[in-house]
């Protein structure tokens, strides 16, 4: 059907045709941007990592020595279980969008990479335990950089610079204080943004209701 036939057709009112077209355009543009995301993963993971970092720091400072690896062996699987649960719950509530799928891929892939580095890297001593935090920061930087572009939110993308700079600093901090710095980075660049995203999600849901 040619454009002119389409516009002059008897079966379709011209005004309706234009409205339909504008509606389709709006949907295309909205689908690109719409990310139904509640930010719970950001908050939950950041709390887990802060618990891990601070407990390692406190145990070490108080002279309680054991293999701290076990703290992470408990915390990280809890994080993965929560993320999978949260994803299933979100899928039940909202239809998946292209942007939502991309955000899922970004954080899923970043999580896999950090798990490999944190759990497999140190097994043979290839990765020094103190190097795990800065490497995780660098990976987080990439993940935030891409996330900011996907949702087209500048401040979210700019968090990547905080992570990258934090990671560079941590590469030069060889003392136990590295754990404390990482906990602080986690609070400012993950927990707080997570709370902001969660609040916005709540507002959107209320507006929709």
């Amino acid at each position, binding site marked *: 059907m040619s454009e002119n036939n389409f516009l002059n057709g008897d079966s379709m009112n011209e005004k309706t045709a*234009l409205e339909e077209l504008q509606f389709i355009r709006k949907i295309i543009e909205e689908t690109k941007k719409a990310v139904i995301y509640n930010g719970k993963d950001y908050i939950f993971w950041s709390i887990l990592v802060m618990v891990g970092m601070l407990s390692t720091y406190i145990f070490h400072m108080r002279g309680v020595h054991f293999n701290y690896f076990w703290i992470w062996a408990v915390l990280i699987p809890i994080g993965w279980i929560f993320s999978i649960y949260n994803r299933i719950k979100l899928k039940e509530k909202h239809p998946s969008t292209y942007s939502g799928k991309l955000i899922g891929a970004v954080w899923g892939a970043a999580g896999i990479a950090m798990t490999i580095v944190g759990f497999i890297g140190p097994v*043979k001593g290839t990765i020094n335990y103190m*190097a795990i935090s800065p490497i995780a920061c660098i990976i987080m*930087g990439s993940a935030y950089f891409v996330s900011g*572009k996907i949702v087209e939110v500048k401040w979210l993308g700019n968090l990547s610079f905080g992570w990258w700079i934090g990671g560079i600093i941590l*590469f030069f901090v060889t003392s136990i204080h590295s754990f404390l710095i990482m906990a602080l980075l986690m609070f400012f660049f993950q927990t707080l943004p997570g709370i902001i995203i969660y609040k916005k999600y709540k507002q959107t849901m209320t507006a929709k209701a």
Partner: protein
Amino acid sequence: MDDRTAIDELVFIRKVIEDSKRSVAENGKGYILWGILVFLGLMSVYLGYVFKLPTNSPWVWVVLIGFGWIYTLASVFSKKHEKHVRTFAAKILNSVWLGTGVSMTIIGFIATSSGMINGLALSPLMSTVLGVAYFISGTVYDSKWVKLLALGWWCGGIAMFFIANIIQILIMALMMLGLQVIPGFIFYFSSKKEMK
């Protein structure tokens, strides 16, 4: 009603659909160039070590990676000046590889100079980071085989964490050919086909 507006709307919708298709086939050159540069760097380390040649120098990397960044930034700027609309998918892919490039440069240059990362940790780390980029790219392309490349990078990274000798460098070089340069050529030829 303004007929022109309706036609504009239709043209926009058609353009979005065609752009999205084209953007998926857009690149390939970056993959090939970076793959070859890193392959050359790795081979210079390997051959330098095995045959005691003077090629095992950090300056080789400075030149290769510097060249890669100049090419990448130049192509990003030239694309920005082009008049055609950049698609959402193309923007995301750009940010994925830019973010990955920054991360790999920090790990490769700053982390090693701090002494926190030793030379044998570099290849497995780079491989793990590349896995992230390929996984996201595979989701953008909606392509299973690109996602499988991510799996290849991650499995290779895990294996290399356990290979603490010079063979690791050779494995990484071969992975670079198989999982980066060859896919780059596949992207390149399919984009040529798409453009026709």
